[in-house]
């Protein structure tokens, strides 16, 4: 007893035993494959099926109605094995290169797979080698280089490993090794298409002008489409490469930042790269759990989009259409987690800004004359070593666990007393009054007094563990009426918003001598600024009240 199925062959219903049906089905499917993807395929298949039905009918002679395996074998023996349909290779190739269908059958696009038969780690390199038609050894050297030189080749490799499927079936292995995807081959395809187009304009079809014209037009449009597609494909790959390069550059910067590596300074000496260092993190957040959390937040916040960038670059280059929603969603969740972590750490650090406290002190100084000369201590190169201050530059600088911050401001105020006084205000923020006050007191700055000259460094400095909490120093030079101050060249680095009669800007005040009068600070003997002259002063007999 055998199970049968009913099948409609060319409009006639047959009962076919299951195994016979399978064989016949297989047979027809194979022929179909041999015919390739041509327009006339369906027509030929219909003819063949019709003949199969006819043969069955003839054989039954109206006596029975079930097709058995032997019937199918008979049909195959009459019709021939699929390969006999084309009677030699010549015929077959003639079919597949049948002009109008050439592009659809020839263009078997190559796909990228990992070659697990020829692998060292995951077969990624040999897969890429197959894809571009390059010997895999070069790809391997490239990755090995990236592994060792920056350690950054690691992440792209892992992404490639995840994204590229491995070649499992024979068909996939063939696709993997197919014609290399390079500019030459893409160009060839376009050229073929163009020649095809030219033929259809000049070719034999001239007899049926209207027909050939419409055919040629449709080919023209196909060709234009091909060219656009070619440009798009090229642009896709180009941007893919750009994405990967940018991604890797960010990865390098990120790893260098995390491990405080020297690479940062090797790549660039500008501040963009030197600021986000380990020390800055400590200055802003401190050490311990919060610093670790901040680091994790930074890795997630920058690292995940970077990996995404590399990922999409890889997908663009290799035309991969993988959609791994699990990875995508978890990356997104991690990224948001990074943002939340960052917020948490930032909010915690903001607590340190709640209270602002000042610590007041005075610098005792008896001037030799009634004129103060103000200048910048760091302006003189040889002063660095004498005062243990590093050769700092920029707004913020960290060296030997000390933070140097360009935030010392000197201004000039009148005083009713008869002596020049120097008031120092150290200001800092903290989580409470005590915290802020302590931080303010710990802060230091450098100054030097030589006879009548006052020299300040524009930098305040404090220990790294005190953290960076808006520390600043305000130096007020208290001038009695009649006293003078000379703002020497270079002191523009330290003065800030000095009030004067003419409301001159700080920079305009440099290089001039100023006298404190009842109306305020006035320029003395200035050429370009309105003020008073020494002669005027004598006439008005305003004598300095200096002892």
């Amino acid at each position, binding site marked *: 007893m055998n199970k049968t199925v009913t099948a409609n062959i060319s409009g006639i219903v047959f009962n076919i035993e299951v195994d016979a049906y399978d064989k016949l089905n297989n047979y027809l499917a194979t022929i179909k494959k041999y015919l390739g993807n041509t327009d006339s395929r369906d027509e030929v298949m219909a003819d063949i099926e019709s003949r199969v039905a006819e043969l069955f009918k003839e054989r039954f002679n109206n006596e029975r109605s079930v097709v058995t395996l032997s019937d199918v074998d008979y049909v195959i023996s009459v019709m*021939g094995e699929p390969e006999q349909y084309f*009677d030699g290779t*010549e*015929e077959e190739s003639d*079919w597949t290169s049948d002009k109008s269908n050439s592009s659809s059958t020839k263009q078997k696009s190559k796909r990228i797979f990992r070659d697990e038969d020829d692998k060292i780690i995951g077969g990624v390199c040999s897969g890429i080698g197959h894809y571009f038609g390059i010997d895999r050894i070069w790809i391997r050297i490239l990755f090995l280089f990236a592994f060792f030189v920056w350690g950054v080749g690691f992440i792209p490799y892992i992404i490639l490993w995840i994204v590229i499927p491995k070649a499992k079936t024979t068909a996939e292995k063939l696709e993997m090794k197919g014609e290399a995807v390079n500019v030459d081959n893409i160009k060839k395809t376009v050229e073929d298409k163009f020649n095809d187009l030219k033929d259809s304009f000049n070719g034999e079809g001239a007899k049926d002008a209207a027909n050939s014209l419409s055919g040629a037009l449709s080919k023209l449009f196909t060709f234009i489409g091909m060219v656009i597609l070619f440009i798009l494909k090229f642009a896709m790959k180009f941007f893919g490469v750009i994405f990967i390069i940018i991604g890797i550059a960010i990865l390098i910067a990120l790893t260098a930042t995390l491990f405080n590596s020297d690479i940062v300074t090797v790549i660039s000496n500008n501040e963009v790269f030197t600021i986000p260092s380990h020390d800055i993190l400590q200055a802003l957040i401190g050490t311990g759990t919060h610093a670790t959390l901040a680091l994790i937040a930074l890795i997630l916040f920058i690292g995940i989009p970077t990996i995404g960038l590399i990922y999409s670059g890889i997908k663009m280059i290799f035309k991969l259409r993988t959609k791994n929603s699990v990875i995508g969603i978890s990356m997104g969740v991690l990224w948001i987690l990074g943002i939340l972590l960052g917020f948490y750490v930032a909010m915690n650090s903001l607590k340190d800004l709640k209270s602002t406290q000042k610590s007041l002190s005075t610098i005792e100084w008896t001037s030799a004359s009634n004129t103060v000369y103000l200048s910048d201590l760091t302006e003189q190169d040889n002063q660095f070593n004498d005062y243990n201050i590093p050769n700092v530059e920029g707004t913020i600088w960290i060296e030997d666990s000390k933070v140097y911050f360009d935030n010392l401001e000197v201004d000039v105020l009148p005083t009713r007393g008869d002596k020049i006084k120097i008031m120092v205000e150290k200001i800092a923020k903290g989580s409470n009054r005590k915290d802020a006050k302590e931080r303010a007191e710990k802060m230091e700055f450098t100054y030097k007094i030589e006879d009548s000259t006052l020299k300040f460094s524009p930098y305040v400095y404090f220990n790294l563990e005190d953290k960076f909490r808006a520390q600043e120093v305000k130096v007020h030079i208290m001038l009695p009426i009649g006293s003078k101050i000379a703002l020497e060249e270079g002191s523009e680095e330290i003065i800030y918003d000095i009030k004067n009669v003419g409301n001159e800007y700080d920079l305009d005040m440099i290089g001039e001598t100023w006298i404190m009068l009842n109306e305020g600070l006035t320029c003395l003997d200035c050429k370009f600024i309105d003020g008073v002259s020494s002669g005027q002063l004598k006439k008005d007999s305003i004598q300095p009240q200096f002892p």
Partner: protein
Amino acid sequence: MKIENTQAQMRKGVLEYCILSILSSGEAYPSEIINQLKEGKLIVVEGTLYPLLTRLKNAELLSYRWEESKSGPPRKYYQLTDKGSNFLKDLDVTWQDLMKAVELTRKKNA
């Protein structure tokens, strides 16, 4: 160089010529054509014919009409088109020339 390729190449041209010759005496459906070709041992299996007929039809050398059949599905009856007749006439001349050429060459070198 494979002998199969050369044989197939030779047979291909002859096969097309023979099909057109068979149809020159009137229309026929595939089985009839096959039977005649089988007699001459030009083809061994029927499958060969179907792609060939479709190709000749697409080249506008043949046309066909449907006819109901008692013993199965409707049949395609093929016939020569005008283009096909001219094509066949040309082939007849070519064939005569080839025969002469082959005969002459072989006689001389025998």
